């Protein structure tokens, strides 16, 4: 436990002392506080059981499962194209990004690759869904601290992105647009120009949020130095995405692995932050949204001509084998371990969702913090219930 910050060490000692005090007369009594399952602070149906001593959390345990829908079992009774309909709904804010790793895994087993045009459009839609996802996070961040304005801004500007996704795919929320071997349709006319304009709007949104929230003194004092997760803890809990990079680890699956996608065609950078506190996690996400806008802007100029579908058989049977593909989704590393037996449907799909690992650190991170900080730590870890429970 040498990596503990001073603050956490102190609070740990205090919580130990609080435990000892429980038996002494005229001292505060321990109390169990149940937050959730339906509670405004948990955005969704996560239930957190906290054992408090006064205002300090002595012990906390999230209780998941209120959104468990049995994806892994259901994929076993669906065909490969049907599975994408289902897995759209895991991380419901960045739906398109959920489809990509599964489709890539199936393509890997079939030893085919989408045409270059489809790869670039996939990457653009992937980044758009990241923007749609994280912009809501940035707006929601204010609500957690009692500021209502940012969420209105987020919902307003997010609609532009949803319009784009709807224009290209036909679905606001769950596009179900990715196919094994390419994409369902080509881009509509005028979409590229519109996207360019929306990207300018979204970058302005990021600037506004940075001014409104990140420069705000209340925000800083409630975020800086709170909920510090050191790098070795982050790694051993398997944190990923912005939560990992906020602990100072420079790792991004978009850059650090070879996939038939188009991220390497754009010039962008991976942001890290050495602090590992709540502020760092939010700040890294803000920068990522900006980088996503940049990626989209650059890729819009680089869409090659050509088909959007490669030759695939009428009835898709995926050859026998096992494949693991993970991508850097809005919430973190999302991967599918697909086992096929040569049938119409997969034999087993292990879904590695980012929030499950990101939230498993909560019992550790909440130990010794104060009750108001519980909300900010949870908000900054950023989870989506469907992504935890699947």
């Amino acid at each position: 436990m040498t990596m503990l910050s001073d603050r956490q060490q102190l609070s740990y000692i205090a919580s130990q002392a609080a435990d000892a005090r429980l038996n002494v007369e005229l001292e505060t009594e321990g109390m169990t506080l149940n937050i959730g399952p339906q509670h405004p602070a948990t955005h969704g149906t996560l239930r957190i059981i906290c054992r408090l001593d006064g205002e300090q959390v002595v012990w906390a345990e999230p209780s998941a499962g209120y959104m468990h829908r049995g994806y892994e079992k259901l994929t076993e009774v669906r065909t490969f194209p049907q599975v994408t309909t289902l897995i759209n709904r895991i991380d419901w804010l960045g739906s398109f990004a959920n489809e990509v790793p599964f489709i890539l895994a199936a393509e890997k087993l079939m030893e085919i690759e989408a045409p270059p045009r489809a790869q670039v459009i996939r990457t653009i839609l992937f980044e758009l869904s990241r923007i749609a996802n994280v912009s809501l996070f940035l707006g929601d961040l204010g609500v957690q601290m009692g500021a209502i304005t940012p969420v209105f801004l987020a919902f307003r500007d997010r609609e532009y992105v949803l319009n784009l996704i709807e224009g290209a795919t036909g679905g606001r929320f769950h596009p179900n647009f990715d196919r094994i071997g390419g994409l369902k349709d080509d881009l509509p006319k005028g979409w590229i120009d519109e996207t360019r304009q929306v990207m300018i709007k979204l970058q302005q949104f990021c600037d506004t949020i940075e001014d409104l929230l990140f420069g705000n003194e209340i925000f800083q004092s409630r975020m800086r130095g709170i909920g510090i997760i050191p790098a070795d803890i982050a790694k051993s809990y398997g944190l990923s995405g912005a939560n990992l990079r906020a602990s100072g680890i420079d790792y991004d699956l978009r850059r650090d692995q070879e996939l038939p996608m188009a991220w390497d065609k754009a010039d962008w950078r991976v942001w890290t932050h050495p602090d590992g506190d709540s502020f760092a996690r939010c700040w890294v996400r803000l920068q990522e949204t900006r980088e996503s806008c940049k990626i989209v802007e650059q890729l819009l100029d680089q869409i090659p001509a050509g088909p959007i579908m490669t030759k695939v058989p009428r009835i898709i049977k995926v050859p026998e084998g096992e494949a693991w593909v993970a991508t850097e989704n809005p919430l973190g590393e999302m991967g599918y371990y697909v086992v096929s037996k040569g049938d119409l449907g997969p034999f087993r799909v292990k879904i590695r969702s980012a929030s499950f690992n990101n939230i498993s650190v909560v019992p550790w991170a909440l130990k010794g913090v104060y009750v108001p900080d519980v909300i900010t730590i949870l908000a900054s870890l950023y989870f989506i219930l469907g992504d935890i429970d699947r």
Partner: protein
Amino acid sequence: MGLVDRGRMPAPLTKLFNMSRSYSLWVYQWGLACCAIEMGAAFGSPRYDVMRLGVIPLPASPRQADFVCISGTVTDKMAPAIKRLWEQMPEPKYSISMGSCANCGGPYWDSYSVTKGVDQIIPIDVYVPGCPPRPEALLEGVVLLQQRIKNEDMAAKWRGDEYRNNRREYEVDDGGYRTHGVSGDPIPSNVPPREPIVVGGGPIE
């Protein structure tokens, strides 16, 4: 309201009360899954602006809400909590079931952990189909609910009877006192049971 307590209400007063109620609805937002975000877009975003319909999307507590919007997948683990919070809501209370999952299980119709329809747990007034429904569809559901409230027989609701419509075709003649739309009469046999409304029409299976 002594008149309501006694179970009789003159028509103009019913109309006034129903109109007041239908344009000051406090909603309890029960966001569960994907639909919660579309509900948030409908209730919380400047683009759709639900307040212009007279719906106040603020209460964080079911104890001060007029209707609950259940949006998203209801799991067997969640079902008891829904039942409990529904019981905490004061009468008169209404409910909107938003999205395929809450309506019937949706894409998880064969799952081992999903409740196939929230109407197994609580009575539903308006179903909004879609996966997820667009915010406009939810707003239509709200408007349909308001129409339903406007047509409601308040006294019957007060006595705890089933929803009763005071439209003309259900009138009964009990001689003397009543004029068009006076409520409080025993429910005649030709009143259909509480029928839910579906946005976009269509049968419920």
